[in-house]
């Protein structure tokens, strides 16, 4: 079996890998794959959750807008509703009478704007390269259809700059690269990172077999010092990625320095709306100023997101910080590292 194969690989030295993507974190926990790794191999969780890395100020901006004017409607993905910021969550703002709606797709927000000309519909957009093209599409569509009451509040982020930052610290021996981000950006980006920082990259799917296979490949590449990218998710990821989606991103967005919650500002890691589409930019339309919001100093999310520590090494983990009462963002999103470890974590022993 593939699993035993992985377990029995002889590894010459300690290897520290990182799974960048939150869905990998969850599935590795869920499938119990950690038990299958050779002892010398450790896999740390990375910053791969758009919800976890969205700064607290974004939540505050959304809440303040929702409560400021009853013609303002905040729409966002369901994941964002319960993330605490300095003045509560978006769900709290809804309870206070603010118009806040969670949607499955940005198309719902756009049609809400189209049908209610008296409202200003603001979409609080989070997500990586996988999610951002839909936002770009919505802005173009709004322009095309002359929908003047639709605005995007972009907190979109890009994965490769964060990977570069982590790779540059020199503590990692390999990346398990995010499968669905890769469908958009393709494989070549990782090649540059692999070469520049001498770190092997394997793009993985999400089934148990996908991940096991990718891990076998990653160990093999690390042992052979193969500083390259291997695509183990060919059924969905093409070398060149999704050209249409890339085109949309380039047309509507520009790369800007961006703040990652718990990590700090990473150069050229965020997407802001280009001037050409400024009419749809909520940051401009509503004069939004950036605000620095200090995090709870006891929360170790930054160290978790960078893979310095495992979630259970945070002193609050499972004590004052649990999914029902999250202290930090990693405990909220169901793919957040702390939440995944808490729900599925090694702490559950079937004795």
């Amino acid at each position: 079996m593939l699993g035993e194969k992985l377990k029995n690989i002889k590894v010459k030295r300690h290897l520290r890998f990182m799974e960048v993507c939150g869905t990998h974190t969850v599935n590795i926990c869920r499938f119990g794959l950690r038990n299958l790794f050779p002892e010398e191999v450790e896999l740390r969780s990375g910053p791969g959750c758009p919800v976890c890395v969205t700064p607290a100020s974004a939540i505050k901006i959304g809440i303040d807008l929702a409560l400021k004017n009853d013609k303002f409607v905040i729409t966002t993905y369901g994941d964002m509703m319960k993330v605490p910021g300095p003045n509560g969550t978006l769900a709290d703002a809804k309870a206070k009478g603010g118009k806040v709606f969670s949607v499955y797709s940005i198309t719902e927000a756009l049609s809400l704007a189209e049908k209610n000309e008296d409202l200003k519909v603001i979409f609080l957009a989070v997500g990586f390269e996988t999610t951002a093209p839909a936002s770009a599409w919505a802005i173009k569509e709004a322009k095309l259809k002359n929908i003047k009451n639709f605005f995007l509040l972009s907190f979109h982020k890009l994965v490769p700059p964060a990977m570069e930052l982590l790779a540059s610290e020199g503590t990692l021996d390999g990346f398990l690269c995010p499968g669905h981000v890769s469908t958009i950006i393709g494989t070549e980006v990782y090649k540059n990172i692999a070469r520049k920082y001498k770190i092997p990259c394997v793009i993985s799917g999400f089934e148990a077999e996908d991940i096991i296979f990718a891990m076998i490949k990653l160990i093999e590449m690390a042992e052979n010092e193969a500083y390259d990218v291997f695509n183990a998710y060919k059924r969905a990821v093409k070398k060149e990625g999704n050209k249409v989606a890339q085109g949309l991103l380039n047309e509507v967005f520009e790369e800007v320095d961006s703040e990652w919650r718990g990590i700090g500002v990473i150069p050229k890691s965020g997407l802001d709306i280009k001037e050409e589409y400024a009419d749809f930019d909520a940051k401009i339309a509503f004069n939004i100023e950036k605000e620095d919001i200090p995090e709870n100093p006891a929360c170790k999310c930054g160290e978790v997101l960078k893979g310095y520590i495992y979630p259970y090494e945070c002193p609050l983990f499972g004590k004052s910080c649990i999914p029902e009462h999250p202290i930090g963002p990693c405990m909220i999103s169901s793919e957040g590292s702390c939440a995944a470890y808490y729900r599925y974590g090694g702490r559950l022993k079937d004795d």
Partner: protein
Amino acid sequence: MIKLAHGSGGEKTRELIEKLFLPAFKNPILEKLEDSGRLNGIAITIDGYTVKPIFFRGGDIGKLSITGTVNDLAVCGARPKAIAVSIIVEDGFPTEKLEKIVSSMAKISREVNAPIVTGDFKVVSKGEIDEIFIITSGIGEIFYPSLGADRVSAGDRIIVSGPIGDHSLAIMGERYEVELPQGFESDCAPILKLVEAITQVGGIKWMRDPTRGGLAAALNELAKAINKEILIYEDSVPFRKEVLNFCEIFGFDPYHLASEGRFIAVVDKEKSEKILSELTKFPEGKNAAIIGEVREKSKGRVIVKTKFGGLRLLDPPTGELLPRIC
């Protein structure tokens, strides 16, 4: 401040009950926190219905309001004897709709032999409520008194009477504009017949209908009450494939979805197979299954053994069900 989550049947609801209602209304019957209050051979229950949309596949708010009340009595081992209803509608609500709803109520009430013996009807200004609210109360005669969380012990088996979550899917399918297969319906239906049949076998210790908050809410509540661990075998839980696929697409947890015509029973291990075979004799019980067991561990929590042999903590739902992108 009261939030939507406080009414979702999840952790926040429990918090509010424990901090506000229990201390205020303090009495030994309420403190048991069962679906009905039980006293001197009778059981009494009440529930408010605000479902959206009011007409859904396999039912409407009228059917739901009577079914929910008689089911709350049934899981407390009581046969419904009489029902009281209060209907509140918004100004401008179409008469035809009201007629349809009322006739669904009448049908179920006849079916379970529980006449609607008193009622109240109000109209409020447009916008004060959303279309229609129905509040239903029922009174029943207890025919199986030996139920209660305090009777549950390690080794007992957990049985569900059928697939879980169909009702939520019928409701949420509309909200998320999905097209369900021909014939897919809410499970909304009275469970009295099934409950009566298995009580003949005996060995039943606790029952609950997994409505709001689904299996996760009901099982966590039990685990906390008995301060023991509940282990669920994921492979055995009879979710329909439509429910699982819907959850996968939108990022919901199927354990959080509601049923309105199913129940969970905690039963003596020795009797579990016999009870299961009783259930499977009914068409609505043909997918009944033993899904888990109570374990002697001093931790009130629910653990799911996954298909891959891993273990996962099943946490109670924390509020509204929200779609996810990750």
